[in-house]
């Protein structure tokens, strides 16, 4: 079984937000409420004239030790054999316990208003027909067909590298064990499967 992960090469990210748009189109995220499965944080640091701009793309880290899965009382949050953390919309009661437990702010509520707008916009193709908590699924439906997640496939600079962390020939494996790429907030013990190469 594969163990999917992603490496974010911060040296390459230009903050174009194409990943956000691609994800939103692929997964029908409620962009009208500014809710995205992947988000590029854009922040300024320092004081004029020594100011630097920092970009940080983020998404669900598909942690090995998942605080969201432990917090979910209904079993709506589950992990696939490939280690992808997913949500069963039918079982989600929207108690927000998973959102509170997630250290990476990866989840958002797909509320009644969002569902209404999604149904009006996407018609019979609408994939969100009931309120639930939503987040990145590593585009599991695409991965199953041998494709990359929409964000990685779209990234014009190749800043998002997706693959099997257990495959010694994969680039994500090599980068994840190189020590160059590191996860966010490793001290929490969540063992994220998304790694970052600093800019």
């Amino acid at each position, binding site marked *: 079984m594969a163990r999917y992960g992603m490496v974010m090469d911060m040296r390459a990210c230009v903050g174009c937000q194409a990943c956000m748009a691609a994800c939103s189109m692929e997964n029908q995220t409620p962009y009208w409420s500014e809710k995205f499965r992947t988000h590029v*944080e854009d*922040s300024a640091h320092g004081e004029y004239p020594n100011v630097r701009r*920092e970009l*940080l793309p*983020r998404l669900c880290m598909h942690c090995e030790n998942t*605080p969201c*899965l*432990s*917090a*979910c*009382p*209904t*079993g*709506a949050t589950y992990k696939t054999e490939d280690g992808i953390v997913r949500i069963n919309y039918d*079982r*989600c*009661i*929207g*108690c*927000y*316990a998973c*959102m*509170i*437990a*997630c*250290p*990476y*702010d990866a989840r958002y*509520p797909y*509320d*009644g208003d969002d569902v209404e707008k999604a149904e009006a916009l996407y018609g019979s193709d609408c994939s969100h027909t*009931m*309120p*639930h*908590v939503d987040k990145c699924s590593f585009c599991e439906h695409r991965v199953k067909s041998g494709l990359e997640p929409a964000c990685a496939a779209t990234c014009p600079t190749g800043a998002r590298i997706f693959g099997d962390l257990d495959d010694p020939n994969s680039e994500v494996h090599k980068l994840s064990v190189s020590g160059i790429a590191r996860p*966010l*907030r490793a001290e*929490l*013990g*969540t063992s994220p499967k998304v790694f970052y190469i600093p800019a």
Partner: protein
Amino acid sequence: MSFVHQEVWHWQIATYLFLGGLGGATFAIGAILHLFEGCDRKMLSIAVLSGMGFMGIGTIFLLADMLQPMKALYALTNPSSWIFWGVIFINFYFLMATVYVIPLLRSWPKLVLIVEIIPDPILDLMERFNRLAALGGSAAGFLVAIYTGLLISAAPAISFWNTPALPLLFVISAFSTGAAYLLLLSTFSKNDYAHKISEKLEQLDAGLIVTELIILGAYFNFAFFLPTGARASAAELFETPFFVFGFMGAGLLLPLAIETYSIFFSKHSKQSAGVVITASLLVLLGGFLLRYYVLHAGLYQYPW
């Protein structure tokens, strides 16, 4: 690193945590009084029924805050979640409270006819095991009260919450509000024995407030020494007038002063009932403010 307020759980959840703790502790203390002090059955029945009412209203607040409340039964699926255990504890609470309170309702002449709809063998069984139900109920009340703290302490990125001190603080605060509520009830009781119960409850509440102050001191001291969001949360709370003057001043120190005065100098006359009622109401207000502001001060520590 940046600190960001949690924008997920608001006053509705604070109300649920407050009423859950209050309901749990009211039953737990009432049942303990029954077991060891032989308390007035009429007062106990009001206490347990209102405890169930608090719990019911609290649960409504929780359900109203959910996206899909009609699917709430699914919450009995994952035992690694504190909400799963909350559902178990609350159901155990309602079961124990119902079994416990029904025989007590016989002490109300107007309710006897309704109670007697239940077949005699079941009623006799409930009467026979009433003390056992009281024991089970006190355990259920304690579990519900401590669960309210365990629920929010399970957030690894909110370091102000993610500490064993929080469930401890919430359970002691819950028992303090429960004692204050029972004190309020005993003030209105016409039973000859009520003033004795009032004295006990006052002593209990004063002791619980002192314990709460000690835990608060340790909790904030610990938070201020952590180089994390906990320090930012603690600092923010100390800059919030409603927390400092509302919760700590009016919700803890003032009722403690009133109760201490009452324990040593007052003889529980009708004239002193007013101040006891004031102290009780202040403790209840403080209990809500604690939960509201602790929830509000929950800061995520993000790496961006």
